[in-house]
């Protein structure tokens, strides 16, 4: 499993893809959460 010798080209690694994925996940969270939230509001007090 270990191939720690081949770290070449990874010195300036920036997790841009992970950040993009994370933001997409949060956007999906907002969509799902508000879908239910407006359902609650429509059920009234």
């Amino acid at each position, binding site marked *: 499993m270990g191939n720690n010798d081949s770290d070449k080209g990874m010195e300036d690694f920036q*997790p841009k893809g992970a*950040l993009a994925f994370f933001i997409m996940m949060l956007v999906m969270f907002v969509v799902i959460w508000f879908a239910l939230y407006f359902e*609650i509001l429509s*059920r009234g007090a």
Partner: protein
Amino acid sequence: MDKSEKIAFTLSGMLLILFFGGIVYAAIVEDIDVPTCITNMEPFESDTLFQTGPDSYELQMVARMWSFQPSVVTLPVGSTVDLYVTSQDIIHGFKIERKNVNLMAVPGAINYMRVTFNEPGEYLFACHEFCGAAHHTMAGRIIIEPEMTEGP
């Protein structure tokens, strides 16, 4: 902590603050809340329904193995109900479908929620806490009639 981590952390915090804002708005402006602690109500052992105003009623509901009393409630459209629920034996659950009413019926405590019915129709309420062998048969209905026919 590097820049991307800081962004992720900040966005997570903002997400939760956004949700919290939604909760506060629904509670304060829309008056949709969770049940609170009731101490001004005398314990009751049998069910009662009476009118407290032109469109308002008080319903004291008793849950027991394996029925709600009353199990059918008929009210005119537009009724606001002060709903008190307790249990005579073990824990039961009371949820009215399509409404924001969901109450645990616990022996030794009284649960309360106010609810207004603006849409006519039948609303099922089913016991949703395990209460023994016939738990799945414990249910009832609130029937909201389109317009007043007779006194409830």
